[in-house]
């Protein structure tokens, strides 16, 4: 589903990604962990070209990210959920979800609103359709953001630390939605600090540090028997 070859990314002189090769299969749930500043978020943001790679080739579902029209095409198929939700504050929850399908997919407004309502139901917020984002708690906002991304019927979902900005008691309501999504067979790439989620839901765990994939494998195996020194030292601090 996602193919990354020789990905490099530098901000000025600061080289954040130093050669990443990665293949993500359909329906795979890949969890990326690593210390802050390791490049894990940048790697994720390169997958839908929110960051432009300095070098390397990325393709999603066979479409190469090498032209403006291809980039837009890929973004239609790749949903993204941000750490800070990034809901549109001037629109109701329902409008937030229905906007892109109408403007990008050209579905009718009626159909888009119908889909939006059923998605809200799915994330447990059917009663919040007419609310504005700032009337919702962080956990509710993040669930709306997931519904908004799903409204485009994406083939892949990218999550950039989706629970890092939440109060602890709201983390689970978001993780539950993500778990359900994984169960339904969504291809997912998740950057997170939630080790429990990684262990329970992930098909594969990637440990990234200093711009490189240091170690990867089945989550349980990596957690219980890390092979690399840096993985060991990181896990000893977070587990």
């Amino acid at each position: 589903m996602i193919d990354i070859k020789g990905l490099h990314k530098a901000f000025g002189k600061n080289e954040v990604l130093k050669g990443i090769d990665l293949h993500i299969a359909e329906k795979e749930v890949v969890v990326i962990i690593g210390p802050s500043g390791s490049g894990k978020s940048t790697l994720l943001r390169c997958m839908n070209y929110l960051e432009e790679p300095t070098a390397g080739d990325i393709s999603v579902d066979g479409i190469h990210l090498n032209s403006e029209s291809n980039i837009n095409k890929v973004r239609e198929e790749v949903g993204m959920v941000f750490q800070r939700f990034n809901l549109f504050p001037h629109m109701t929850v329902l409008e937030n979800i229905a906007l892109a399908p109408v403007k990008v997919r050209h579905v009718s407004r009626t159909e888009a609103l119908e889909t939006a309502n059923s998605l809200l139901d799915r994330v447990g917020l059917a009663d919040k359709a007419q609310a504005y984002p700032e009337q919702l708690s962080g956990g509710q906002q993040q669930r709306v953001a997931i519904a908004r991304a799903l409204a485009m019927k994406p083939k892949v979902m990218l999550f950039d630390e989706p629970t890092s900005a939440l109060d602890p008691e709201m983390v689970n309501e978001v993780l539950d939605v993500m778990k359900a999504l994984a169960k339904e067979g969504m291809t997912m790439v998740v950057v997170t600090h939630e080790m429990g989620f990684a262990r329970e839901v992930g098909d594969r765990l990637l440990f990234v540090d200093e711009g490189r994939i240091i170690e990867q494998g089945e989550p349980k195996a990596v957690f219980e028997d890390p092979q690399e020194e840096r993985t060991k030292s990181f896990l000893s601090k977070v587990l």
Partner: protein
Amino acid sequence: MSFNWDLVMNSFPLLLTGAVVTVQITALSVALGVIIGLFVGVARICHVAPLRILAAVYVDFLRGTPLLVQIFLIYFALPVITGQRVDPFFAAIASCGINSGAYVAEIFRAGIQSIDAGQMEAGRSLGMTWMQTMRYIIVPQAFKRVIPPLGNEFIALLKDSSLVSVIGFEELTRRGQLIIARTYGSLEIWISVAIIYLAMTLTISRFVAYLERRYKVDDRH
């Protein structure tokens, strides 16, 4: 010194018709200025370099030269090139609107740049183009934030419209000059003119304050 109240009373209707013209010029210039300002302001931050440079030159030139000179350029210098006389009404609105467009562009640019970068990322990641995201996400939010500075710009423009009196266009200031030429009542007429301007600018500032309150409430719901 004596203050001739009769002169004030007798001149008032004539001054008011001048004030109506001032309002007309201001309203039309504001409309032109907002349209120009929106496009130039967006062009200032778009990713097409030639557009960005063109917009910057526009803003620099119009903010860097006096409005009075710009009025002369349009009314006196333009006919030299085109060989056609420029209508004073057209010259008044064009010069005020084009000038205001530069200031409005800077207001919009600042307003747009004050919107969290995550909003653009969210729009783009949903597959919307840069232009669509601007139109549906960024600009509507920026609009609310620029209401106060936009109000200041409209007040400035209303006052600056007095400059078009120099090309003989009969708005409020010019009406005042003409009455004085006939009656020599400088004191009475200039005070009357000042009070009428003040009444108009206060009306605008109250209206802007009302808009600000209304949209603040809207934002929260």
